[in-house]
């Protein structure tokens, strides 16, 4: 279970998260929506430990551990995965090598044996097939020259391989064609289990059609101003944020 209480964070002297309270029980998928610049990506970064942000207050526990006290790699080992809104390019770094290094780092942290190149390729090919990704995606350099949609799929591939306990998907649906959208949703659905939960940041109802969330939250000006069931997303799609914003003001 992810339990966020009174979380505040700033960058420089600009405060961005102004008191987030959010509980995601095990096995649930929650959607986060909200206007541009409201702090959605910031929440993802703060949960995964990006150092540019200063946590100024509040707490985050994840399966009983104090997440905020951990280095980013330790959070990853604890099962936190962030699919980046804008995935990063690593020139010259072979995608398969990157994925294997990451997977082995996490396996090591769990006291599991590392996979050699052959064992890894076997596992990876199963996932690329499932995600309808061409095999050569593994041979290319991490995200270099990938199209917008390919980058997003590559994030989902990483998620599928690393099998996180908490996945934070930051607009993974943006820039995807209709088929890809379905594939991404299937990717998340495949991971669903009583020990997996997800925070899905999105601007669009269409992803939520495939990936029915347990709860939908609206983030504005660094606070959650409204929460509801899946119907809230459909309502927002029709009315926009003006209504909820006015209500909250």
């Amino acid at each position: 279970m992810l339990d966020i209480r009174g979380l505040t964070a700033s960058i420089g002297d600009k405060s961005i998260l102004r008191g987030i309270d959010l509980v995601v029980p095990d096995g649930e998928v929650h959607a986060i929506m909200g206007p541009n610049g409201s702090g959605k990506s910031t929440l993802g970064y703060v949960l995964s430990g990006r150092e540019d942000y200063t946590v100024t207050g509040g707490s985050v526990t994840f399966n009983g551990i104090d997440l905020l006290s951990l280095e980013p790699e330790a959070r990853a080992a604890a099962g936190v995965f962030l699919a980046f809104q804008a995935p990063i390019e690593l020139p010259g770094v072979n995608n398969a090598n990157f994925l294997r290094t990451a997977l082995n780092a996490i396996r090591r942290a769990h006291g599991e044996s590392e996979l050699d190149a052959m064992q890894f390729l076997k596992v990876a090919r199963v996932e690329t097939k499932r995600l309808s990704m061409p095999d050569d995606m593994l041979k290319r350099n991490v995200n270099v020259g990938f199209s917008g949609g390919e980058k997003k799929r590559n994030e989902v591939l990483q998620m599928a391989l690393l099998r996180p306990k908490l996945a934070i998907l930051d607009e993974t649906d943006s820039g995807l064609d209709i088929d890809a959208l379905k594939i991404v949703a299937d990717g998340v659905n495949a991971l669903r289990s009583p020990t997996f939960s997800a925070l899905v940041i999105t601007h669009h109802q269409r992803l939520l059609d495939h990936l029915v969330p347990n709860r939908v939250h609206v983030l504005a000006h660094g606070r959650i101003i409204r929460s509801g069931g899946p119907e809230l997303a459909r309502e927002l799609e029709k009315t926009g944020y003006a209504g909820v914003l006015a209500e909250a003001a």
Partner: protein
Amino acid sequence: MSATAEILDSVQSSYKWGFETDIEMDLAPKGLNEDIIRLISARKEEPLWMLEYRLKAFAAWLKMEEPDWARVDHPPIDYQDLHYYAAPKKKAGPKSLDEVDPELLKMYEKLGIPLKERAILAGVEPDPNERPQIAVDAVFDSVSVATTFRETLSKVGVIFCPISEAVRDHPDLVREYLGSVVPVADNYFSALNAAVFTDGSFVYIPKGVRCPMELSTYFRINARNTGQFERTLIIAEAGAHVSYLEGCTAPQRDENQLHAAVVELIAMDDATIKYSTVQNWYPGDADGKGGIYNFVTKRGACRGDRSKISWTQVETGSAITWKYPSCVLIGEDSVGEFYSVAVTTNHQQADTGTKMIHVGKGSSSTIVSKGISAGKSNNTYRGLVRILPSAAGARNHTQCDSLLIGDECGAHTVPYIESRNRTAKVEHEATTSKIAEDQLFYCRQRGLSEEDAVNLIVNGFCKEVLKELPMEFAVEAQKLLAVSLEGSVG
């Protein structure tokens, strides 16, 4: 603390080859004069012509001045305060490994240098899982202490021996080629080297022979207050083919030590010489104390048509590196290549690059230089591409990339291009980038430690160069890069 701040905070030395070997030495008195040169020549039992060559070089050197154009800084070197000859007392030049001082054998074992020839049994297939065998010439201070696989090589006519031995046993070849690519008075350090050089390797590959194994020389500086003056000469006759690798290490000491080398390569028609260097001299400590001054002149002459010389270097060590492995492309359609990774951390300074001199019609050259700077170090690429009027249709492509780790280091690119033939095509690309915080974070979010993340990014950055190294050495080089940058991150 941000990742970069931590990188800067904890840069420290992690040099693992810095031990000393206690061994009884035959040391020349300190100082440089004609008597010392006579002493070196006598110790090496050289013919008179060699002594005369040295004395001529010394006279030239006395008239020269130390160059100051490189972007490196060091207190004046007192050339009279050095020993110019240092050799283990027990039998210089033993005939078999059994005669080598066991202390020395232990040292090479510790350094991971294979000096044992595994017996090749008749009728038994070699184990494919074992590393391919490599012939090694081991140079310890001023002498070669062992050269392996000489018999195997001589069966196909390949000569692989210490240069001091070649001076005695193959005087015609040495006289013809020594100084033919790097003339005595080429520069200050080459003149010094010609006067006092002590050992290095000699390689001769006869016509049409493909050298059956990798050749390598391992240089070790051990004695205190000693300069090492390496001299290497490689000749590939028409259609010959050779891949050669050199490695080097030195003890960790507070004083600076000088390694001034000259390497000459000669490739005839259709010959190929691949020369790889993994340079790992002691770089000095975190405060910039100690370390080797590595002042090196390396040059290859592509004399024959379609000949090819390829330099690959991974430079991680030395307090100061001053080195420009070059190619003189004389033959028609001859090919010169330079692939370089230079890493500087702490207070290291590297001014390195290449010269490609295009003389022959249709000659072509490729330069790929990757500079990585961390700490307070300075890393300069200095390159010259010169196209002479005779070099119709010559081509050069240069790619120079710099990667910065932290804010206190420097990367500089100084390309000189002189084209005197209109049909020539010269391209130059340069980039400078920093390891971005977002790249590090991306890797760490996936579970990699910060150090592994830096290694991954650095190795990615160097990939084009590392893939030019012979396979086994590419793996070594990757590890070396990791070790060099160890402590560069939190």
